[in-house]
């Protein structure tokens, strides 16, 4: 296993702290423990002159800087670049920004195997596809673990509207002859829209041929806020994070 050695130390400037999702911090802590702590230590002070809990870093001031250092390393030092998916990088950054206050003992990581059963029990595949199974009317989740962070997935389950990518918005088109086409938007320009309809057919429509065209900002996915316990939610997130398409 490679070891994530973050070669940072105090200097640089102040950063206005953005909001970090607790789930991102928690998964970042797991990644840190697995990949970084060998060199940096569990408390972030394992490398001489470097204290990751200080909140400021020698080679980075912004989250983008931190992400760059994590993925490309620092030349001439022991800090090498790490091959992590973008959500994983964001999770490690979220943890680094919250090392001082995060209580790892208070967080119970989810179980992916149980999450898979919940995925099946809740019939998620009626809309979503994973690998060769499931429907295509909602976004394909086969690689969702490489696209979304834990915090984003958790929010998707609790408040789907807040996480729906604008390109995925449901559209309703009424042709001049009154035919109604409902679907999920795939692409759009000034004159045309491309979508996958609710019969899983790819359609390309000329807007000039439409009597009505509506872009909805409400996700058809229900909220699982009152359906899943916090433990079940963590399990389902763990399963979704494991979907990396490989």
């Amino acid at each position, binding site marked *: 296993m490679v070891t994530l050695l973050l070669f940072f130390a105090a200097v640089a400037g102040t950063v206005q702290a*953005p909001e970090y999702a607790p789930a991102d911090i928690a998964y970042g802590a797991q990644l840190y423990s697995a990949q970084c702590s060998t060199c940096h230590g569990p408390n972030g002070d394992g490398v001489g002159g470097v204290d990751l809990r200080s909140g400021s870093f020698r080679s980075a001031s912004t989250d983008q800087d931190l992400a760059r250092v994590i993925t490309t390393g620092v030349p001439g030092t022991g800090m090498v670049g790490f091959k992590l998916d973008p959500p994983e990088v964001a999770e490690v950054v979220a943890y680094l920004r919250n090392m001082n206050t995060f209580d790892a003992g208070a967080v119970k990581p989810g179980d992916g195997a149980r999450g898979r059963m919940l995925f099946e029990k809740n019939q998620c595949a009626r809309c979503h596809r994973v690998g060769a199974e499931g429907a295509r009317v909602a976004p394909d989740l086969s690689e969702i673990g490489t696209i979304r962070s834990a915090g984003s997935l958790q929010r998707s389950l609790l408040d789907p509207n807040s*996480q729906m990518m*604008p*390109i995925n*918005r449901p559209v309703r088109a009424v042709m001049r002859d009154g035919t109604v086409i409902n679907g999920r938007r795939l692409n759009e*320009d*000034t004159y045309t829209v491309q979508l996958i309809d609710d019969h899983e057919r790819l359609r390309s429509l000329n807007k000039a041929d439409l009597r009505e065209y509506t872009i909805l900002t409400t996700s058809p996915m229900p909220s699982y806020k009152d359906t899943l316990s916090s433990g079940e939610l963590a399990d389902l997130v763990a399963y979704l994070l494991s979907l990396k398409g490989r």
Partner: protein
Amino acid sequence: MTRRTTWLVVALSVVAGYRLQADVGYERLLNAAREPRNWLLYSGGYSSNRYSALSQVTPANVKNLELKWMYQAAVAGAWQTSPLVVDGIMYLTQRSNDVVALDAKTGRAFWIYRYPLAPDLLVCCGANNRGLAILGNTLFMGTLDAHLVAIDAASGHPLWNVKVADSKAGYSLTLAPLVVKDTVIVGVGGGEYGIRGFVAAYDARTGKETWRFSTIPGPGEAGFESWAPCQPASGTYCDSEAWKHGGGSVWVTGSFDPDLNLTYWGVGNAGPDWNADQRPGDNLYTDSVVALDADTGRLKWHYQFTPHDRYDYDSVQVPILADITWNGGPLKAMLWANRNGNFYVLERATGRFLAGQPFVKVNWMSKFDEHGRPIQTPQPPGMPTWPGNQGGTNWYSPSFSPRTGLFYVSAWENYATVFGGTAVQYQEGRNFGGGVNRPHVPVPGAPAPGLRRGPINNWTEAAATGAVLALDPATGQQKWRFPMTDVTDSGILTTASDLLFTGGREGYFHALDARTGALLWKASLGSQIVSGPITYEVDGKQYVATISGLSLCVFGLRDSIP
């Protein structure tokens, strides 16, 4: 010559009947509007209005346009150049610093000149080049390693090559030079690397520098007081000599008024881009237009659009010089739709502010004072600022038609950014942005308009939309608006038949009625259009040229239709 250069003659004298002697004297440049069959300067003429007197293609027959020829570049990336056309020969640049001479009627190549570049270039936003200038039989090109090269238009052979600035410090040349009299005028890019920008003129025959104007004044110069010393504070970085890294890049071609003997240049953002606290003061002449004596480079006047900029609102738009009616009398005006979201009318002899008002949503300022200075209204931390980082418009060439009296601009509407400054210490050759910015989009992490674009419009109307706006200079009001789903980086061309040609990121090439904005014709070219269209004539036939993706596409009327 200080560098080894290479050149390649692909085919000389391939097409009988063409004379590869361009012979474009200064008089021809002065009177470019009188020979609309050619496109002799970056913006078509010294007034930079990207307007042509050609009228063979009309609103009635534009539907009969067809593709006449294509030329495809081999290097991927945004192709931002605007070609020149001289007596049947088209000269253009392609990435990264090639020059190509083509038969403007068929697209067949006469020669290609390849300028050798080091692989470790410092360019913030892509290996861009926006075009050439010509004088006599010589072409001039700025290079990404901050050189200026003169090339023989007949052979493609380099004639001289001078170093303009140090590319290791982040300087580059991406603009098309401007020839005025016997000099070649250029500006430098590198505003994201803490350069100290300038405009400089070079003798067209020898390459010897004849004058230089620093866009960031030094000690003892007027305007230096606008770079106040910052007060050291814990937790941030104070640069006591901020002016030395003050930015002020000049990366889009200026204009020239021969009667006033003034050349006008838009100046880019201050450095660091987003942490304005490190550089107290107005930070002249960043985000300004400067009017320079064409013979000496001395500053005649300036107007600063965005004092003490914290939003990266470069003022590198093309200065349009228009003679208009103002309050019932004639006015030598300068018309300017700025990246900061405002449309301005200035008196171009004096720089006097006459009018300014938003053409897109603006909340970084509330109004102008009586001197035309914006009253700024910085938004609270975490709140969005309109327009966003790429601006209400940017470097995309606008157009002014003397027939319609309208000013046309490509706009990004409903586009905002949440800005945040961070401390950054200048280091030569390192990015000097000093900011943590995020697009204002409804979904955290959702795509938002940036510099690059794929075939899927995945940021959608939620992040921004595009439009062509026709503005009445007398009132600043929209005469019409042509909306697009995706944003547009395309320039705009207007013609004497009241046609308007433009593109956009969707890859459509549109012909609009310049008086009403009605769509008259379109072609789907398959990739983003990020340059300004041109028009020209060969053997009595009018052509319209644009670039989509890696393809230069040239249209003309179907031969069978008169």
